[in-house]
């Protein structure tokens, strides 16, 4: 039995695991000033970047006409070939550690061999989280034409990894180690 990782989809149905390439995300400057409540600012230059992102919101929250959320949670995704030597995640050792789940902030996705969507291995960066209006994402989905969707159980695996990362707790005072 062939458990495919991805499928090609089109249309404005948005599901968890949908990958949007070149999705614009705003990078708000640290010195952004909104002024006092009830005022309108002068026009400002706000930088944006186009990133590859994957949907992490639950599919059941984004069902058409039964939406439970006005915004979609997305995580940044990088392809293995995006990294240059010397960068984090540039070495195979890093990718192997991430693949084994030892780097809790990352999740590795398989390469895609679908016709027209041949892509390298990808890593989901749980520390780069974006939120976009659901209507905006639906519109982007229509404009994208064909796009790829991560299939079960790989998307549940991704969702679980994100939950594990998000729910981590670091204790300020840990229990001392038991001596053998």
């Amino acid at each position, binding site marked *: 039995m062939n458990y495919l990782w991805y499928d090609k989809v089109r249309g404005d149905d948005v599901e968890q695991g949908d990958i949007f390439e070149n999705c614009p995300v705003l990078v708000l400057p640290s010195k952004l000033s909104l002024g*006092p409540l*009830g005022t*309108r*600012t002068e026009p400002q*230059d706000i930088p*944006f970047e186009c990133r590859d992102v994957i949907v992490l919101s639950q599919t059941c929250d984004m069902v058409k006409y*039964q939406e439970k959320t006005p915004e979609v949670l997305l995580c940044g995704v*990088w392809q293995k070939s995006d990294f240059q030597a010397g960068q984090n995640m540039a070495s195979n050792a890093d990718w192997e550690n991430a693949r084994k789940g030892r780097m809790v902030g990352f999740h590795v996705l398989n390469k895609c061999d679908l016709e027209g969507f041949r892509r390298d291995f990808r890593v989901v960066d749980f520390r780069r989280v974006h939120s976009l209006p659901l209507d905006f994402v639906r519109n982007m989905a229509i404009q994208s034409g064909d796009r790829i969707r991560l299939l079960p159980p790989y998307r549940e695996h991704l969702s679980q990894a994100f939950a594990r990362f998000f729910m981590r707790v670091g204790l300020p005072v840990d229990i001392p180690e038991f001596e053998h």
Partner: protein
Amino acid sequence: MALTLVETRSEQTRPMLTPSRFQEWNNREFLMTLNKALQSAGRGEGVSFSSAVAGTTSSSLIVLELEHPFWNAPFCLVEVNTRLATDNDTRVYEDPQEEILRFREVVKARQGTLVADDEPEELLDWDAHIETPPPPRQSGTIKVRFNYVGRSKPIPIDDTWT
């Protein structure tokens, strides 16, 4: 671990590889007694017995005090002091045609390599992150005028479970 006792006889003197009744009896009794001894050892009772096959056989439980939790599992130690066939006083007759070459032990055990992960939790890198992400394929700026109207309201949902 499976321990197989193989008795090899000369094919010239005795082509039928059949042990004598006494040898067969002794071997069976030895294995049955050893089995009981191992069960007793599993209950924490050290057992020692003597037999025609071995002078003394003792079994006991050993708990190692090592760092890795794998080694904290109790081990069963079996000590067998072997004796020569000529010392076997239960042997009541000798078959001159019978030439016992020797006993041979074949130890069949699964082989595996233990992974040295003394502290599995330490293998998790909670802090790994991408300091400098790959450059975006496209970037730019947009002109924005912010109309600061305060915090937004939650969207009304009648039944969150439907």
